[in-house]
């Protein structure tokens, strides 16, 4: 048996041919499903349980939240287009679409800030009733995840305009994209269960 190093000895060898970071990240997202499932369960368990108002029908704004939902969906579109841009080696496309993700994600956060402030003015705080507690903790953690995503995209955008995102870096952008889409699909569930199925 030859004593020369084989392909398996390369420190990039994998048993599946799949990028290790991608395997790890999909696993992490499987884990995050449980985190949000527990928060969503808590909200669903406490539907109708508040002993005092404000109640959901009084404060939830469907038209406004529909727009912010649409905005977030479009930000996911921008994300795949940004990845496409990086894969093609187009600094212009990648930078433009990454900027769009940031703008649209930031817009979503803006809507959330407005909504939260408005609710507090209406008397709905985290301590007011179980609706307030479960609503703010669930959507707050989601919003925190969006915020982390926006920061992540800002770093990628900065790298892109400096020409530091080449096709060889596509995996980094792909993983950032997976995170962003994940945050979007969690919102799909939240929008339906909290806003549409009051």
């Amino acid at each position, binding site marked *: 048996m030859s004593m020369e190093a084989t392909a398996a000895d390369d420190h990039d060898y994998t048993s599946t041919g799949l990028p290790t970071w991608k395997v790890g990240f999909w696993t992490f997202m499987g884990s995050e499903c449980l985190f949000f499932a527990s928060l969503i369960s808590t909200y669903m368990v406490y539907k109708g349980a508040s002993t005092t108002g404000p109640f959901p029908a009084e404060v939830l704004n469907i038209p406004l939240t529909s727009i912010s939902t649409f905005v977030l969906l479009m930000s996911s579109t921008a994300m795949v287009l940004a990845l496409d841009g990086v894969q093609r080696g187009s600094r212009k496309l990648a930078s433009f679409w990454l900027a769009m993700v940031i703008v649209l994600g930031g817009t979503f956060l803006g809507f959330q800030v407005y909504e939260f402030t408005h609710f507090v003015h209406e008397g709905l705080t985290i301590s007011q009733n179980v609706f307030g507690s479960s609503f703010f903790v669930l959507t707050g953690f989601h919003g925190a995840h969006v915020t982390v995503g926006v920061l992540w995209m800002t770093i990628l955008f900065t790298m892109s305009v400096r020409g530091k995102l080449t096709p060889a870096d596509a995996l980094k952008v*792909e993983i950032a994209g997976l995170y962003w889409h994940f945050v979007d699909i969690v919102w799909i569930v939240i929008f339906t269960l909290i806003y*549409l199925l009051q």
Partner: protein
Amino acid sequence: MSNFEVAAEAQVHEGGSHASVGFYWTIAGVLAVITAVEVAIFYIDALAPALAPILLTLSAVKFALVVMFFMHLKFDSKIFTGVFVAGLSIGAFVVVALIMLYHFLPRLEG
């Protein structure tokens, strides 16, 4: 080159077919339309009794579209599907179980 870059370069083609930009816009359009339909149904009183099943189905479709096409899961290795669906299915189970225990099963009173 960093380890990350070397690995990425070696695997840059593992993802299978690359969708066209047009395809992505089509998916985006479908997502927008479904969202609009969901909101419209919300306002149609006649559909109120069937609201939950309809909305849950439509949302599930949106969820699947983003996962399969934007996250590319449909074209990637089944291993990614495996590790993700493992968590997703347990999460779905937890939500359903707690809803059942709190809203659909009689408890001991008093």
